């Protein structure tokens, strides 16, 4: 049993990261009934921007760059966690402006539009940064490792899992406990009535979409030190995110979180015994669950299954 414990812990931290990656995707699927396939590219874009900001050549005018580099690493990291998602949010805004035209049509069009956007963003990343791998610097306080039992644990994994849990909590509070969340949920449920109540639904949707893309960027920055930064990371993120949502069921917040944890445990445990095949395990998990439950774990009825 004790042999299993490290793998379980590893799986749980991984699961929290999967849930974090899926969070922005879930926000857009759950509240707008739109599938954002550009999620992975925005995730990657966030990581690349953070890498550029944390590296030796920040994308600022010369003087500002000097002042920026003079800042302590911790402060720069904290600022990066704000600046990069905002920049990605602006890209998200542009996508939403296009996506608007597909509302009310077959959800397939939104999916295809974002697939096109994903292609464009990925190619742009490749044009700017090339195909090589990068490493994201993180402050000393959260890097390195510590001894526990007889094993060395990576500090960053626990830091990342903690941040993921915190962000999941904040998003839950915003959706479930604020009037903003209530309005957004009502808008997804019955857009006509919400409009009739004098609420600007167009602005609301823009806001939700931008929040979703910013969450993608934050997930990218948090996950980057573990997975590394390379052009393929976008695809590596969007598929698990999509999977977690389908497994948890569209429209269910805790479904997605539980699904994220399940996928993490599954990948973590299978990774311990058959690392070659560990990525396969999450697909088998999905097939097993969706074969039995038509709407994933706790999915609700939505236009996405018309």
């Amino acid at each position, binding site marked *: 049993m004790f042999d299993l414990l490290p793998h379980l812990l590893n799986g749980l931290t991984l699961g929290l990261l999967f849930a974090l990656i899926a969070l922005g995707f879930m926000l857009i699927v759950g509240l707008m009934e739109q599938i954002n396939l550009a999620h992975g590219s925005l995730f990657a874009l966030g990581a690349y921007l953070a890498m550029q900001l944390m590296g030796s050549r920040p994308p600022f005018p010369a003087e500002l760059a000097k002042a920026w580099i003079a800042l302590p690493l911790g402060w720069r990291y904290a600022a990066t966690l704000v600046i990069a998602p905002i920049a990605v949010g602006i890209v998200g805004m542009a996508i939403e402006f296009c996506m608007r035209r597909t509302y009310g049509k077959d959800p397939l069009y939104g999916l295809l539009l974002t697939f096109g956007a994903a292609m464009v963003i990925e190619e742009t990343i490749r044009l700017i940064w090339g195909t090589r791998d990068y490493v994201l610097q993180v402050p000393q306080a959260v890097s390195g490792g510590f001894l526990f039992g007889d094993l060395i644990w990576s500090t960053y994994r626990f830091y990342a899992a903690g941040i993921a849990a915190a962000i999941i909590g904040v998003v839950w509070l915003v959706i479930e406990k604020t009037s903003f969340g209530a309005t957004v949920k009502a808008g997804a449920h019955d857009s006509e009535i919400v409009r009739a109540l004098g609420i600007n639904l167009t602005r609301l949707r823009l806001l939700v979409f931008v929040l979703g893309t910013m969450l993608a960027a934050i997930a990218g920055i948090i996950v980057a030190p573990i997975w590394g930064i390379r052009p393929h990371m976008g695809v590596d993120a969007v598929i698990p995110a999509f999977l977690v949502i389908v497994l948890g069921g569209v429209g269910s917040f805790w479904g997605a979180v539980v699904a994220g944890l399940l996928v993490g445990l599954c990948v973590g445990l299978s990774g311990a015994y058959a690392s070659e095949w560990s990525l396969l395990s999450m697909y088998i998990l999905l097939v097993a669950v969706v074969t039995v439950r038509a709407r994933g774990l706790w999915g609700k009825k939505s*236009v996405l299954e018309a």
Partner: protein
Amino acid sequence: MTSTSPSLSSDATRLVTPAMLVLWLVLATVPLWISRVGLYPYLGIEILIWSLYALAFNLVLGTAGLPSFGHGAYFGIGAYAFGLCQFNVAANLWVCLVAAFAVAGLAGALVALFISHRRGIYYAFMTIAFGQIFWTLAIKSHGITGGEDGLLKIARLPADFGVVTFDLADNVAFYYFVLVVFALAVVAMWRLTHSPYGRVVAAIKQSETRAAHLGYHVWLYKASIFTLSAAISGLAGGLFAMAQLAAFPDVMSLHQSGYVVMMTLVGGGLVSFWGPVVGVFVFLIARDVIGALTNAWMLYFGLLFIAIVLFRPEGIAGAVTAAFQKHSLIRRQGNSAMRLLFGAERWR
């Protein structure tokens, strides 16, 4: 799709339509001029194979309205089946092509068992999940598929008709062979989509619930059209293995599965039988022409794709049809040459 029109138009009952004849004739002349316009015969082969694949894919997406995003798996399985059959069973062209068709069909049937009761996003993601499973299997089973290096040294077997035997090693000869397979498959798929069976499938696209209430076994239709589409994709995959002289796992990746969706939609597969073919032409020629000018051709194609989804969601075929319908004069002259070619209003 043609089948949405209430009355059967004359083309729908035909085995071979004028549009098919014209297309085949044009395609038959391709080896004569393709080198002179700066392209190369291999591109012609690629276009035909991908057209076959996209038409097969469109049985699922366009005719049945089922979002399948992991179709590359069946194309790839067909390619591997062709190669493995050649190495381990019999080095006979017909046996190997049948193997490609059958094995991919079998894989499709297996997947169809799991997914045919699912709808929308759940259906779509199940197809992705199975696609990823097959892709991972292809990459990790080094002993069988050669892993990421691919299955190499697949030969273009000669086409043996008993009395005569054609050697297909040359690109031009192989092009004509692929053209014949393509033509036969097009006839089969045209008949299929315009048969009573095809019309039920099209009805399921409009409303699954309504079709079920009319007493059709929606599940059976969804499963069978998916299986058939997978099998024909596998046949295309077998031809592709011959063309490339190898089978690689990359055609099974999510990206490549996405490309066939793009080709089908850019061309207008949702509204037209020929849409996928148009899409493949545009995609592959754009790849070569834009790709010769810049490395980032996917960037420009992505932008084009976004523009099409936004402004012409019915694709190129749909745009052409719409342009035709504005010219009511052409519309009234029932036998104008262009209508003969495209069957303008029947595209709807």
